[in-house]
Each structure stands twice: as C-alpha cells, then as structure tokens.
C-alpha cells in the first residue's frame, strides 16, 4: 500500500470486497509460498552408497553448504583442505543466517534435486529425517573405515535404520559454568539445586523457553536419571517414573528459588547475559560461552564442570554438533569423500579445537597439549561428550521435540500437572510416530 496516499477513498462495495479479497489472498500466498513440490518416491532403502576408496583419486570442485559461518570453521576447513589436497578445491556456501533458516534452504534444495551442493552441513537432529527421504548418500562404509578415530557417541547421531548417513564433523555438549567464589563444583543435579537455593546470588540459569533448547535441557537430566524417550526398537518410553521425577524436580527448583523464574524466557544468549550480570551461581550452556565469559569481569572467578549425575544415577547429556552429509544429487561424490576424510583426520580435529573452539570428534585431540592450552576445559568437555547421547532418532523428530518442550514448559510454568503432562507427552509422541 502507498503510505503517502493512505486516505484514498475506497470505491464502491464490489471494489472494496475485491481489495479485501486480494489482500487476504496475498496473505495466504505468502504463508504458502514455502511449501509445495515433492520428490519422486525414493526412500532410504534405495539410496546409493559412498565409496570410501574414491576419495584418493578425486579431483574437481566440492561445494559445502550450510549455516552462516560465525566462527570461521567451515571456510577455514575448506581452505585448509584445498591447500592440503592439491587436486580438489573446496568452497563453503552460506545458505542461511540461522539454523532454522539453513534447514529450510537445505530441504528446498534436496526436494528440488539441486546439484548446487555436494555436502550439506547437517545438524545432528536432521540426519535421520534427510536419510528417510532418500536425500543422502549412504556413508556406512566410509564411517566404518574411519570409526577408530571417531568418538562412538558422535557416530551414533548419524545412524538411521542401521546405516550411517553422515560423518560427524564436530560435536557439542552442555557444560555447567559456576562461580567458584560462591558455590561448589556440582557432582549431582540434586547437589547443584540445593546449593543454588541456599543464597540469593547462587541461583541456576538454563534454557527454559518453549523451544528446542528446553528439550535438550530436559533430556540431559532425564538421560542421567536413566529415563529415555524411545527405546532401541523405537517404542515410546517417556511415560515413566524417571520422567515424573525429573519434571517434579525441575518444577520444584523454580518454586524454591534454585532456579530463577526468568529461565522460562531464556534461550542461550539471555541465559549467558543473566549469568554475566554476576547475580547467579550456576549456568548450563554450550562450550562457546567459555570464550565470552573470559572477556567479562567474571573471568577469574568462574569454573567449568561437565554436566552432573543424577543422584544414584550417572552423568549424561545430549549431543549437539554438526555432521557432514553427502547429497544424493552431488556431481562430485569422490571429492566429497576426500573432503570428509580430511575434516575428520586427528590432525585437523586438533585445529577444530585450537582455532575455532569447537568440540572435536576425535578423542586424542582432547589430551593434546596444544589443545589444552587453548581450551583448558577440554577434559571436562570430553567427559560431557562421552557421556552424552543423541536425541531421539526419528524422521518425525521435530514433532517429538515439540511434544517434549511444550509439555515440559506447561509443568514448569505451572499450567499443567506432571501427571497430565507426562500422559500428553506420551500420547503426542505416539501420534507423531504414527505420522503417514
């Protein structure tokens, strides 16, 4: 509409109706512009496989596509690979400013059978969804060939229907940051919550907004308490005593002052900013926060710990991080294999930690002296990574995660009882799994 002439009188009724209709139509068209288009029937069963030996004779260009390269790791890896390889040139193309945007862009390219990208940077939770659609090259042989240099838990994130569909590039796991001058290093969640409730400035901040991050925060505790969402056969196991215990525990924490009620509005950054104000004792966040905290007045007073254990249980966590998936429509699969081979070498994995502060998928890197100098919390990080498990692996993961975070949020915010929320969670996950 033209702002300079907004009061132009509407003509007669018919014209006004038409204007309203057209405006509404545009609204719908905008809403719908994203959907549409379907790939030809092709499932994971018919997918072609990547040949691990092909990388040695590769040549030509390889294009890696994914989210905005904030730390420089993707472009850096592509450059280093091009220099080291000599025959294959790799470049990184940013196709989305945020994770959600990148996923939309990737799905559009995969549905449209685009040959633009040879490798997609896949969030660990997308891999099974992409694989189920027959969009990816089967990397089972490649992963098997590289398995001895990869941390097993990170390899599990690429598995769908007993095959591997990607190679892990770098991983991620939650850590506890704590104020050494106020609180003790937490061994168990119970101890952390008790300590956090003791004094005004001891409180615990985490990611409690209604979004994916809440699923992660909840599952970290559920896994350590011995609970699970789906078992190995894919049966829904969320309706359990462990789920109830964890929900009661978290919601009690909000009531007795262990955790500030503000966490209900926090995702990663607000949680970090709140902690940086110095008004809290504990923070659950990702490894990248370490570097940021070092630039604040808290630099000398904070400590890093792996996620604590559940009382009487073990320490666990939820894996984040990024995998390298080869597009089924790649025109340079050999080049893609060569790139993946390079990116997962123990030597380059050290650079992943030293140059870009990301968590390597190679265990030896964590004890390398050069890495420890740049990343003093590498030992704690490795403990978190090794204890962590993937989120439920399913092509309908987004729906499963919504069922978790919406119902957990309802309990935490006090709008639903634990009992009802657990039942709803189980029902919704069962419905999601039965999706057509």
């Amino acid at each position, binding site marked *: 509409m033209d702002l300079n002439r907004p009061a132009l009188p509407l003509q007669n009724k018919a014209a006004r109706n038409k204007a309203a209709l057209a405006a509404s139509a545009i609204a719908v068209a905008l*809403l719908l512009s994203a959907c549409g288009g379907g*790939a030809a029937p092709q499932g994971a069963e018919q997918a072609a496989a990547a040949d691990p030996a092909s990388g040695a004779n590769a040549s030509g260009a390889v294009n890696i596509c994914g989210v905005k390269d904030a730390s420089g790791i993707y472009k850096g890896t592509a450059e280093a690979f091009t220099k080291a390889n000599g025959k294959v040139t790799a470049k990184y193309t940013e196709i989305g400013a945020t994770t959600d945007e990148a996923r939309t862009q990737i799905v559009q390219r995969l*549905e449209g059978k685009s040959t633009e990208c040879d490798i997609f940077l896949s969030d660990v939770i997308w891999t099974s969804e992409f694989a189920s659609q027959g*969009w990816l090259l089967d990397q089972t042989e490649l992963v098997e060939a590289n398995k001895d240099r990869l941390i097993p838990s990170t390899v599990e994130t690429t598995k769908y229907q007993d095959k591997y569909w990607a190679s892990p590039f770098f991983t991620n796991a939650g850590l506890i940051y704590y104020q050494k001058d106020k609180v003790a290093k937490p061994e168990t969640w119970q101890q952390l919550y008790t300590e956090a409730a003791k004094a005004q400035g001891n409180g615990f901040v985490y990611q409690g*907004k209604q979004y994916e991050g809440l699923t992660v925060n909840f599952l970290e505790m559920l896994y350590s308490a011995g609970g699970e969402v789906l078992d190995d056969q894919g049966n829904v196991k969320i309706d359990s005593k462990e789920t109830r215990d964890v929900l009661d525990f978290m919601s009690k924490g909000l009531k007795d002052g262990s955790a500030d009620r503000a966490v209900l509005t926090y995702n990663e950054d607000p949680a970090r900013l709140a902690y940086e104000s110095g008004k809290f004792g504990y923070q659950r966040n990702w490894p990248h926060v370490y570097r940021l905290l070092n630039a604040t007045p808290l630099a000398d007073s904070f400590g890093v710990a792996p996620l604590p254990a559940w009382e009487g249980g073990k320490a666990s966590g939820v894996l984040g991080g990024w995998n390298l998936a080869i597009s089924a429509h790649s025109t340079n699969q050999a080049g893609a294999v060569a790139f993946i081979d390079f990116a997962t070498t123990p030597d380059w994995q050290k650079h992943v930690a030293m140059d870009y502060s990301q968590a390597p998928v190679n265990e030896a890197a964590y004890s390398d002296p050069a890495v420890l100098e740049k990343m003093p919390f590498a030992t704690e990080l490795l403990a978190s990574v090794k204890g962590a498990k993937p989120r439920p692996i399913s092509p*309908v993961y987004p729906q499963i995660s919504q069922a978790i975070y919406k119902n957990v949020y309802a309990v935490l*915010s006090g*709008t639903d009882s634990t009992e009802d929320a657990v039942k709803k969670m189980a029902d919704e996950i069962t419905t999601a799994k039965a*999706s057509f």
Partner: protein
Amino acid sequence: MATKTIAPSAPPSAPPSAPRTNARDRAERRLAFRMTAPSLILMALVAAVPIGYAIWLSLNQYSVRTAGLSRFVGLDNYIAALTSQEWWAAFGQTFTFAAFSVTLELILGTAMALLLNLAFKGRAVLRTVVLLPYAIITVVSAITWQTMFQPNLGLVTNVLSTLGLPGGDVVWLGEHGYAMAVIVMADVWKTTPFAALIILAGLQVISAETYEAAELDGASKWQTFLHITLPLLRPAIVLAAIFRTMDALRVFDLPFVLTRGANGTESMSMLAYTQLRENRLVGEGSALSILTFLTVMVVSVIYIRFGGGNIRDVAKEEQ
C-alpha cells in the same frame, strides 16, 4: 460501474442517472473489457492459482516418512484442525490480540493525527519521524522489546522496581496475560504511526469552513471534536481499522520471537507455520492456512458490511 465515491470531501461524481443501454454504450463496454482483460487474467493467475493450489494441498496428506508419497483425504485435515484444542486456542488468542492492539492503535492513532494536524514549525519533519517505528523490521523491534522486559536486566522491569511500581518483579514473557500484554504493546508501538497517517489524511480533507461554522454557532472544542471531526473522520478510521485488523489476525513474527507461542500467545499463523515448515506436514499445514485465510476474509466482509454502511450514510448526509 458506479463511480460514486464515499469520501466526504470528494466532488460529486458522474450523475447517478440510470445507465443508458444503447448500442454504442455496449460496444464501449466490450472494448473496455477487452482492454482490461490481460491485467485481469494476470491478477487472477497471481491470486487464484496459489489459493487453488493451497486448497488442493489441504485436501491431501503428504508422507513425512517416504518422499513423494501422498494420499487424498478429502476434508480430514480440516476436521482434524477444527476438532483440535490447539486451533481454537490459537483462534481465541489471535482475536484477543487483534481486539486489544487494533483498539489501542485507533485511539492513539487518532490522538497522534490530531497533534500532527496542528500547524507548528517542523511539522513535516515530525510527520516523517513518527513513522520510524513502522520502518523497523518487526523481528528487530521484537528483540528490542524482549530485552526491555528481561527480568533483572531489562529497562522496563528495572524502572518499575526502582520506582516501587507493580510489575517490576514479574517475568513478563513467562506469565499468561503479561506475555500477551508485551506483544500488544510491541504491536501498538510499531503500527500506531501507520494508523495515525491514514487518519491524518482523513483529517486534512475536512474543510476549514465546517469548523468556522461550528465556531460561529458557539460550539466548544469538545463539541466540535465530537460532532464534526469524529463523524467526518469515520471513513478514514474504518479504513485504518480494516487494514490493521487484517494484519493483526495474521500476526506471526512478534509471538514467534517473544514467546514461541508459550503462555497463551500462539497465533493461527504460527500454528500453520509449525505444521508446514517445522513438521513438513504440508496437507495439515495448508488446511490451517486456508482456515486462517477464511477467518480473515469473514472478518473483512463483516467490517465492510457494517463499517461500510456507516460510510455510505455519512456520504449521503454530506450530499
């Protein structure tokens, strides 16, 4: 086609005599139709094809497990949506949002327009400056509002607790009611200038003579506003209300950034987005989009019926 205009100030247009039906008239009409046909066809393609396609999508289910697999399900997607608690919750929440935000925007917009209509130095500059909030990308302003209401750190919460006012210790975006209030405030802040501009244009076409006559008759300022300004402004206000309501019923970005739909703020558009984009349930999501579209259309028709009737009365009185 009748060309009678409805704005009070518009000059009387073509005489409203019955159309003559001689041969030359008919030929002219045919020619006019032929000349406008290309653009009419283009408009139909641009508007109708996507809607038709969306309707087709909404009558099918598309597999999220096997690529390319789909099945025709008739109205099942609609039945599922209309029997779900989620849809009706989003429906109610969207209307609550629209009612509060549009009402506030019209009241404040009228006040702002009256101020901007006064003769003072720098008026032209100010008229541009008030549009600034409208020019800011909604997602950016949403993040700003989120920061302002952040507990412990936010500007608003800090000011409230420093002054000892209620609300300082409330986690605004974490509570029912409060969260909706923040979203309404963010929307009012952003789009009031737009409403004000439409109303200002309406204000400018009210002739000075009308006011002079009122003054001669000894009407007070308040009486003048109530009996001259407001009735003559009605067409502009209704127009602003239609635009704003249609926008408000499609609200997406504010709740998406501020709460992700938590605490009773999920809108109809957000629901459709989640199904279409996040879950890739194309059929189910399209049905939700069509339902949102129908809701907006029904509301627009009601507006035009009732608001429009008033406009005609005003125009008639003028004549």
